[in-house]
């Protein structure tokens, strides 16, 4: 089972939920930190490095002796990563998504591919948790190819927890796509609600079953609860605004390690998710 932990708003507790879920699973688990622009799940583990590998994307290189300047490559590229002004094509590697389309459409076979490094994947382990973390290189603006590479390193038939980046844009969609269930972590504030509504629309569009976790549920107002009730979205867990949790967090200690009484709570969450995945009762058809 693949469970993605996402949120619209940043700082609602995605990583907290993802790490504590991973720690509460009995048996082997892949914890995948897909927030490649600022990965942080490792801060809550004491994991030992296993391997590190570079991730590259293919970018076009043009053999000018074969190119006749027809510009088919540029017409094809919707990202404007290869343009043909009145010269031979010019490539902008930082705009290239690595789809390979220009290479295919070139009628003269003048374009081949070379590799451009965009980041690294670090794999480490703490007990039963195998942490797979992507780290985008400084200056690289395109996260999805790295997110895909990170996800491709999780194992089939092993419980997988995906820690998504915040927001609802491409890196998040790349993370949650093809997962079995999405946990949307929110907080009961106007910002939390606004971004939750966006996240719900995104997940509904992807037709993935989902439920909501309300973190620091005793703060703010009850509009997140009302929104979930009005739209029949299950609230699967509420976590109180507990100073002990914040103190443990500030020292890089997971809730279940600092406060073992929470372990059954996270195990209960997993059971609920498992039930919803198998009964298909989680909302995936929200029409908002």
């Amino acid at each position, binding site marked *: 089972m693949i469970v993605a932990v996402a949120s619209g708003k940043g700082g609602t507790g995605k990583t907290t939920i993802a790490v504590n879920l991973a720690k509460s699973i009995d048996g082997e688990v892949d914890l995948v930190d897909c927030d490649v622009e600022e990965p942080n799940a490792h801060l809550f583990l004491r994991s030992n490095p296993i391997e590190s590998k570079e991730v590259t994307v293919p970018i076009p290189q043009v053999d000018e002796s074969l190119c006749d300047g027809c510009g088919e490559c*540029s017409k094809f590229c919707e*990202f*404007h*990563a290869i*343009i*043909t*002004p*009145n*010269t031979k094509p*010019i490539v*902008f590697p*930082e*705009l290239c998504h690595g789809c390979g389309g220009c290479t295919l459409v070139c009628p003269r076979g003048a374009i081949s591919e070379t590799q451009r490094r965009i980041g690294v994947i670090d794999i480490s382990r703490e007990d039963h948790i195998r942490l797979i973390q992507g780290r985008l290189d400084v200056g690289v603006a395109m996260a999805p190819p790295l997110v895909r590479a990170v996800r491709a390193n999780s194992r089939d038939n092993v419980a997988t927890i995906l820690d998504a980046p915040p927001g609802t844009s491409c890196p998040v969609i790349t993370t949650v796509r093809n997962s079995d269930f999405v946990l949307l972590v929110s907080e009961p504030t106007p910002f939390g609600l606004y971004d939750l509504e966006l996240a719900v629309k995104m997940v509904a569009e992807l037709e993935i079953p989902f439920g909501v976790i309300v973190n620091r549920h005793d703060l703010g107002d009850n509009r997140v609860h009302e929104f979930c009730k009005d739209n029949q979205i299950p609230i699967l867990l509420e976590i109180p605004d507990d100073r002990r949790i914040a103190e443990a967090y500030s020292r890089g200690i997971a809730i279940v390690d600092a406060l073992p009484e929470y372990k059954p709570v996270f195990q209960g969450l997993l059971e609920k998710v498992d039930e919803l995945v198998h009964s298909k009762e989680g909302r995936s058809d929200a029409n908002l």
Partner: protein
Amino acid sequence: MKIALTSKGKDLDSDLDERFGRARHFIIYDTETESFETIDNEQNLNSPQGAGVQAAETIAKTGAASLVTGHCGPKAFRALTAAGIKVFTTNATTVKEALDLYLAGKLTEADNADVEGHW
């Protein structure tokens, strides 16, 4: 010789568009015929990325030798330079003012981008 200018409207009295890649229109002025044509940049305006380099390609295809605009970012500058187009920046208010300054030789050719991308 043709000169490209970025414009918020469709004629010479329009305000100069400070932006290059996401300018509303391009006005291509021909010094030989003393006439101009207008190119709509609407599609590029909503481009998810690469508006500057795409605009450079558009300008290159018009055969313009110079571009007069408000600001020009690094990727657009690289593309324009590769296409042999000279870049001039100005804070003139209207397209006509910018064109007159250019024709009077009062604008200095830019030797580099003057703003970061996505300014």
